[in-house]
């Protein structure tokens, strides 16, 4: 028995109920018990293919059903039940649900929907979410409208709603990712900015491959992108409008290099690193006035700045202590406070959208990790490990982190991965080419 237990503990996937968690209470009213250990497993859901409501709607109905299911499953928190197990066959969106049939196959959530595509390309999707064991509808039925070209967004919206209602988290599926698409050999990599849906669909390029581009970042409204480009031969910060693909250089100063830009939460302030005379410090630039402001002036390297979501603080990376570590300072400058004290080197800190955590890259003993810590540096947790993991970016709801993982050696290539902040559910994000430097957009409006 001890052996079995320790086996369970060692594997640590499902934790057995503890013998000690009994609260010892004088029972004078209700019987009271306390449960401190449950299970961690994906919640099974049933999603009958959404019903086409008109001829010609079948394809999109199927597509939407598949994307909704894929979104939910990719969180690691849900598991789709094979439709061949279904007992009830729903034939009408409005017919009452036979809960017993769904309980019998252990479906905890049931998602039903219907899709209507009109001849002029309008798509309407209706759906309902049921809590099977409670025998209730969870939230109200919802109807969403769009066009045949945006049906994937409709699907993401449906999945977002389901996800939010069940997990209580803010949604994130209806979002995009800007990244660097890479081709060519390792010593002559060609890089282009590209944008795609969060799940890797709809990739579009934003720049050509003539100039090296690095570290793109979305504005808080998702309509502009900051990045570093070698278009002039030297690294400079550029601002690109997603809609028009027009770009302009920011903060160009003769003889200097600027890089590692990021928007402040107001969408008007840009914080970045500027290198002059071999020394890199942190600056802000006001896009309205074009005024720059120097926030640090140390002989050490100060780079990779990121605003707190309330705009009051900036977290950044500095090697003033002798090795790269993470520091926090007021957004107006001022004395930085070191928050990373673990072994190894820390870099690319990014404040979470919820404000409670800072994600970072850590290098220790020849391995790279993506990790999170609280904003005072406590409770550091490493979520990943590999030859080279780098550059975390938060999902809009602060629940998932996307980052770059590069393989070693001459044939090494980077790819995008995502991981839940619990450290579970590591997944590769499909991209047509090698890809690096992902940056997650806010939730689309």
């Amino acid at each position, binding site marked *: 028995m001890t052996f079995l237990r320790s086996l369970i503990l060692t594997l640590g996937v499902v934790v057995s109920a503890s013998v000690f968690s009994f609260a010892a209470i004088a029972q004078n009213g209700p019987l009271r018990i306390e449960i401190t250990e449950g299970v961690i497993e994906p919640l099974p859901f049933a999603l009958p293919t959404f019903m086409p409501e008109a001829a010609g709607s079948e394809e999109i109905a199927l597509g939407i059903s598949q994307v909704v299911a894929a979104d939910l499953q990719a969180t690691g928190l849900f598991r789709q039940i094979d439709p061949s197990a279904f007992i009830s066959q729903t034939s009408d969106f409005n017919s009452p649900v036979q809960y017993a049939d769904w309980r019998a196959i252990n479906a905890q959530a049931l998602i039903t929907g219907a899709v209507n595509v009109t001849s002029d390309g309008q798509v309407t999707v209706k759906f309902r979410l049921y809590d099977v064991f409670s025998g209730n509808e969870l939230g109200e039925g919802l109807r969403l409208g769009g066009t045949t070209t945006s049906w994937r967004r409709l699907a993401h919206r449906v999945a977002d709603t389901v996800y939010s209602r069940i997990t209580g988290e803010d949604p994130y599926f209806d979002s995009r990712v800007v990244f660097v698409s890479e081709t*060519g*050999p*390792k*010593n*002559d*990599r*060609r890089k282009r900015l590209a944008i795609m849906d969060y799940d890797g669909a709809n990739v579009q390029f934003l720049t050509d*491959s003539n100039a*090296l581009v*690095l*570290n793109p970042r979305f504005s808080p409204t998702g309509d502009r992108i900051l990045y*570093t480009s070698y278009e002039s*031969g*030297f*690294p400079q910060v550029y601002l690109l409008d997603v809609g028009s693909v027009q770009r302009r250089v920011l903060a160009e100063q*003769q*003889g200097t*290099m600027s*890089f*590692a830009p990021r928007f402040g939460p107001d969408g008007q302030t840009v914080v970045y*690193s500027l*290198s002059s*005379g*071999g*020394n*890199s410090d942190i600056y802000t630039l006001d896009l309205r006035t074009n005024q720059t402001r120097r926030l640090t002036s140390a002989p050490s*390297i100060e*780079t*990779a700045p990121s605003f707190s979501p309330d705009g009051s603080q900036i977290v950044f*990376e500095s*090697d003033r202590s002798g*090795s*790269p570590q993470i520091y926090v300072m007021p957004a107006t400058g001022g004395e930085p406070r070191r928050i990373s004290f673990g072994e*190894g*080197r820390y*870099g*690319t800190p990014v404040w979470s959208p919820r404000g409670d955590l800072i994600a970072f*890259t850590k*290098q*220790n*003993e*020849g391995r790279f990790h993506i990790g999170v810590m609280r904003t005072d540096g406590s409770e550091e947790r490493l979520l990943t490990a590999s*030859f*080279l993991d*780098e*550059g975390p970016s938060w999902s809009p709801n602060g629940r998932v982190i996307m980052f770059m993982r*590069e393989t*070693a*050696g*001459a044939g*090494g290539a980077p790819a995008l991965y995502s991981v839940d902040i619990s450290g579970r559910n590591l997944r590769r994000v499909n991209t047509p080419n090698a890809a690096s*430097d992902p940056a997650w957009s806010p939730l689309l409006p």
Partner: protein
Amino acid sequence: MNLVSKTLLLVAAIGLGACTDPSQYGTGGNGTDYNSTADLNGVNDPSSPAYFRETIGDRVLFAVDQSTLGDGARATLLAQANWLHANPEFDALIEGHADEQGTREYNLALGARRANAVEEYLSSQGIASNRLRVVSFGKERPIEVCSDETCYGQNRRAVTVISAGALTS
């Protein structure tokens, strides 16, 4: 990532032009990159960029995370300075590079430090600062592509790229 210290890596420049042509896919780069043009004849012409690259040595190497110049590096840079004195029609662009161990941002800053160390040395030898420019490539342009110290040591470098006089500045 405390690697074993690589103290002795601060050695003199190693002239190995053979590795300097990354443009195997023919996409060139910026026009003034003499380092990648096949001017083999020029190697024997002491006033040619090829001579500078092959004979004098166009690069110096650094230890992990460091930007200090060792004795060997200084010797190479002294020779570079002499060449630049003798050939005033040329300017120099100093590229700072880092190995792949480190974040992109940090390596950009580190490359800038390395390039700057070279620039300062050349300036201290009397090369006019308007003939010198620096750029950092961080870990973006490794010269060697393996993932161990034999390559990393070659990638932690500052390369002096000679160009015909008209660098903006």
